[in-house]
Structure formats: C-alpha cells, structure tokens
C-alpha cells in the first residue's frame, strides 16, 4: 500500500491500540487475529517458532502490554505482530473513509515506510500502518542480526 493507493473502504480498516495510542491498518494485510497466548505452539512455514514482533517496542518510546497477535504473511514467512488490543473492525457508518497522505516534511523525515496515511475521525488524526512493510522490515532486521551473530557479512 502506498500514499497514492486509492482510498480504502472503511470496512477494510482495522483499529488497534498500542498502549494508549490508536492506530489503523488495512485488514487485508492480516491473515489471522488471535490472542497472544495462542502463539505459544504455533510455527511458521519453515517449521520454526512464529517470529513475534511487539509493535509498541518498535513504534513507541514507552512499553505497553500486548494481548492480541496479528498474523501477517510476507513473501517469505508469516510474522506475528503483537498489539495491546484490537478494538473493533470499523463499520462504514462510523467513519468517513478518506485517507490523507502524510505531510511532505514527515514523508521525508521518516526512515521507514511504515505509515502510509492519516484518517481524521472525531477531529483526531489516526495513523494508518503498513503492516506488511513493518513485517518485512522486522524480518530483514532479524535476519541481519542472526548473520551478525554468526559473523557472516551483511548483504
């Protein structure tokens, strides 16, 4: 998804909490939603324990508890993105589905393409996350970390 992607339908927006802050995501990026406790015995396509990424640690400066897992499938693997809670699946009548692009200065300042737009609801801006991009970058980062530990060159 990009800032130039046509407007999302409100019914395809997932609303989630990371600590006290609310974020949005495109629910087509999410293969499955489940409680964190159920990840314990889950494995990915390679038969390895499911990679878990705590989104509050990745996106915020203050720690927050995580209770729900969003399974996101990238080209290579499935990753569990952990969030404090998924509040609701926004219904079309709740919100005007106009996703605004990020302001140009923010687009330039952000090092990752993890936020693709802003939706204003009740006068407050909610950030739309690109969960697939976050999952891909988290996997890449984890792979680099493993290579560094093994002493292999980073590509």
């Amino acid at each position, binding site marked *: 998804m990009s800032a130039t992607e046509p407007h999302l339908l409100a019914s395809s927006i997932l609303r989630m909490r990371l600590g006290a802050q609310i974020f949005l995501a495109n629910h087509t990026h999410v293969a499955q939603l489940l409680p964190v406790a159920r990840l314990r015995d889950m494995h990915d396509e390679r038969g390895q324990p499911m990679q878990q990424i705590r989104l509050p640690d990745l996106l915020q400066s203050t720690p927050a508890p995580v209770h729900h897992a969003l399974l996101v499938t990238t080209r290579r693997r499935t990753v569990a993105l952990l969030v404090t809670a998924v509040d609701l699946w926004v219904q079309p009548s709740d919100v005007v589905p106009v996703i*605004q692009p990020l*302001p140009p*200065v*923010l687009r330039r*300042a952000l090092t990752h393409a993890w*936020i693709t737009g802003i939706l204003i609801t009740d006068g*407050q801006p909610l950030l739309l996350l690109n969960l697939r991009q976050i999952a891909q970058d988290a996997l890449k980062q984890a792979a680099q970390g493993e290579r560094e530990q093994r002493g292999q060159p980073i590509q």
Partner: protein
Amino acid sequence: MFDQAEAYLLFRVADEQYALPSGSVHEIVRWQAAVPVPGAPTILPGILVQRGVVYTVVDTRLLFGFAATAPERATRYVLFHEDEHRLALLVDAVLDLIALDLTLSEAIPATLPVAQARLLRGVVRHTDLLIALIEPPELLAALYAEV
C-alpha cells in the same frame, strides 16, 4: 488595521522575539498534546488536526538551536501555511500582532548563531525590542535541512 504586507505576528522562543508575516499565519491555538508519529525526529514531535487540516508540529526551540522544554501555560501553536506545507510551530508565547516598518530593518548580527541566522531576513527594532524577522521560505528550507 494594518497594511497586510507590514503586519507581523510577534512571538517568543526561549528569550528571543521573532516575527512572521501575518499572511502566512492562519491561526493561533493553545498547546495540546500532539499525536506522535513513530520514527519522526524530535524536531517533529507529532501531528495535530485543526478544522479538518493536518498540521505537522515543529519544535521551534530545536529548529532555532535552543534546548527543548516542557510546555507551559503560554505555549502556543502558530498554524503556518507556506505553499503546500501546513505546519504548527510550537512557540513559547505569542506576544502581539504588530506593524513593522521594514525600511528600518538591519542586517542580521554576525554574532547570531547559524541555526537562527539562516531563517531570517533581518532584524528590526520595535519599541525597546530587537525582533528577528523570519522569512517563511527560509524557515521551510531550514526545516528540510534538519530532517
């Protein structure tokens, strides 16, 4: 009240007085917590929405080379438009709307730190104050140089 070309919004950042052309200023709003944007630099502490428009908050203390401080009662956002940019300049206080005679403006003092001098078109004396005149395009250029 004023000729638009001469009207300036006077505000304070740290102990210094600055003036912005009033034509670039859309509104002054009281401080409120901005919505933080993950991964943004500290000079851009978040975004806020005013009348349906998204503004990027700019910490002018950091942009002007001062240390950041916590907001106080007088802290305000100056909602600023320049081209397609919509910025909420976080300032320590908004002081006045004044008419300035730019023919009396002086060159930027050589002693002024580069972080401030790069934003300015000059300085002007008004009553007993020395006011730094901000050039909006230069403000944007300085911001882009920081992010």
